[in-house]
């Protein structure tokens, strides 16, 4: 499996990437000499404490942030040589974003939100709605097509956000803490969806705080103070102690109670 990945072409190649905020005494290195190569079909989890530069790195990879020092090649082409308009086209055709806080357009309904990326591909209104409807069906949201975002639960909104990220059939999916605002059940569903996409050959780069979610990925990058601290396999990531599910706790308490009653 590892061999299969290594023979694949690198999709993203970063060399000595630096990103600074502020000037003079207030200058902070958000990214400080990042060297990273991500190959096609990899599922990379980026971990690290808050403020270590995970989201900044994801924004640069997603071509949203153009002000950095160093080299960034996407599909073998230096980003410096790509115009702003062409970069927008790459975002439209090759990259799908999933944000932590969903980022749906509140004044548009579910289907219009999902169809939004197709606007910039020049697809007609009717065709856009057909494509969006099809993808919403795969996420079991076809009955919620004309709901407004505020009428959905957190899990449903995030599924809409993922559907929107996938509607353009992008080859790279960038997910910034996609389960950050969700409970464990909804998180599991979202991670299963991402895992499914990975199996289909998509490259997924996910920023997360939760070590348990790294089990879905093929590679884990740990960041610290703007640098890559470790580049490991998910098995090597130290898992947090498992919190018992509330239902199981109640079940256990009930059985203890029954045993006590029998003794009486």
């Amino acid at each position, binding site marked *: 499996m590892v061999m299969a990945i290594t023979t694949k072409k690198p999709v993203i190649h970063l060399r000595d990437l630096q990103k600074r905020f502020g000037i003079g005494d207030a200058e902070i290195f958000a990214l400080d000499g990042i060297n990273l190569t991500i190959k096609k079909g990899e599922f990379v989890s980026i971990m690290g404490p808050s403020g270590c530069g995970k989201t900044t790195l994801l924004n640069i990879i997603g071509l949203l942030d153009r002000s950095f020092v160093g080299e960034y090649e996407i599909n073998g082409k230096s980003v410096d040589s790509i115009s702003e308009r062409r970069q927008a086209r790459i975002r*439209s055709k090759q990259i799908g974003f999933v944000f932590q806080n969903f980022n*749906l357009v509140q004044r548009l309904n579910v289907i219009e939100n999902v169809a*939004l990326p197709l606007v910039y591909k020049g697809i007609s209104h009717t065709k856009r709605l057909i494509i969006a409807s099809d993808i919403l069906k795969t996420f079991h949201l076809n009955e919620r097509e004309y709901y407004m975002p505020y009428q959905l639960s957190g899990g449903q909104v995030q599924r809409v956000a993922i559907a929107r990220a996938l509607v353009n059939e992008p080859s790279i999916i960038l997910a910034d803490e996609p389960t950050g605002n969700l409970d464990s059940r909804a998180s599991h569903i979202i991670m299963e969806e991402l895992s499914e996409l990975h199996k289909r050959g998509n490259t997924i780069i996910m920023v997360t705080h939760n070590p348990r979610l790294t089990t879905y990925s093929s590679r884990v990058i740990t960041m610290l103070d703007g640098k890559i601290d470790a580049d490991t396999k998910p098995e090597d990531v130290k898992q947090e102690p498992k919190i018992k599910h509330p239902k199981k706790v109640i079940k256990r308490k009930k059985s203890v109670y029954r045993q006590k009653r029998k003794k009486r």
Partner: protein
Amino acid sequence: MRLLFINHIQNARQSLQSSRTRSLLTMLGVTIGIASVTAILALSGGTNKIISEQIDSLGGNIIIVRPGTAKKMSPDITHSQLTSEYITSTLTEADVALLETTEHIQSVAPLMTMTGTIKADSTAPSDSQIVVTTPKLAEISDLKIRDGQFIEEGLDQNTVVVGTQLSINVFGTESSIGSTLTLRGQPFVVVGVLKRTNKPINYNSIDFDNAAIINFEAGKKLNSNIAQIQQINIRADSINNLDSAIADTNKTLKQSHDGENDFSVLVGDQISKPTSQLFFTIAGVMTAIATISLVVGGIGIMNIMLVTVAERTREIGIRKALGASSSDISWQFLIESLAISIVGGTFGYVAGYVVAFSISDLLTFDPVINWQIALIAFAISVVMGMIFGFYPAIRAARKDPIESLNRHN
């Protein structure tokens, strides 16, 4: 690109519908501005049309000579009406005599209007005019006689031809031949009554229904023996010789005026330009209202668009992350401001005609409806939308996607 453009229009419609009251209030400024422009153009077009039709009905071979250059006749509301009246006319009796002998000219009639009390059994309203001219005017301006005759060379100098309405006003009857009226205190005998023309607006700027026409010599006497010629009407011998007649008129007058170009020879559409100072004053005031409301309306559009951009900062970030380029974003907002100005302009165009037709009930002519006015209203709306929507659109396009995404609405 075309589909993207259609999408921007759909998006603009959706956005305007989502905040209807705000959009309608923003449109109001544009609506008032365009309504004023439309009303001015429709009414001035109406007067122009009347005069053009009159000239066409006279055979199209009429030439008008007026004192001063055409430039000086342009409306200037900063100068009082009286200023122009103090200026001595540059046209003289000698000019009239010279023109009568010029080639290709059939007939010439000088025109001099005077103000003064017209009195008989009762006093005529102050808008009645004393017209001083020669017998040729009847032929050139096609004035028809109801009773009696027009002024003639051989007749007694103190004779007058009156308009029907003036006759009714001062004598109480249309049949006033033989009666005597006083013009500036001098008695004049009525020798003819004109047929009702119902054309208060014409190229002579005289309402012949309300006029007392007297001979040139008598008129001069009333004006301290000074001929103050305000206009010379010329009829060319044929429409084919019109150009030659114009050239000859220019040549003759220039020679007579020692090479000075202190006169204007007007023909066709040039004559039909309304010359009434009152009309220009009204048009000037309406133009000022239109300009102010268009600027205020435009600022309103810019203001609302800036608010919209601020409100939708996060949406801009989302759209950019999903593949929109800066130009896509700027077009989106520019089309939205264009939609406001064009819809506002359309309402204004309709409202302008409602105003014009309401005003025309009090006037003697109808507003003109033509595609040029629609085109001007549309062009002003588009230019306004572009100018005042440009800055907000650029601001939207320059938004940083990351900062926009982090904005909490």
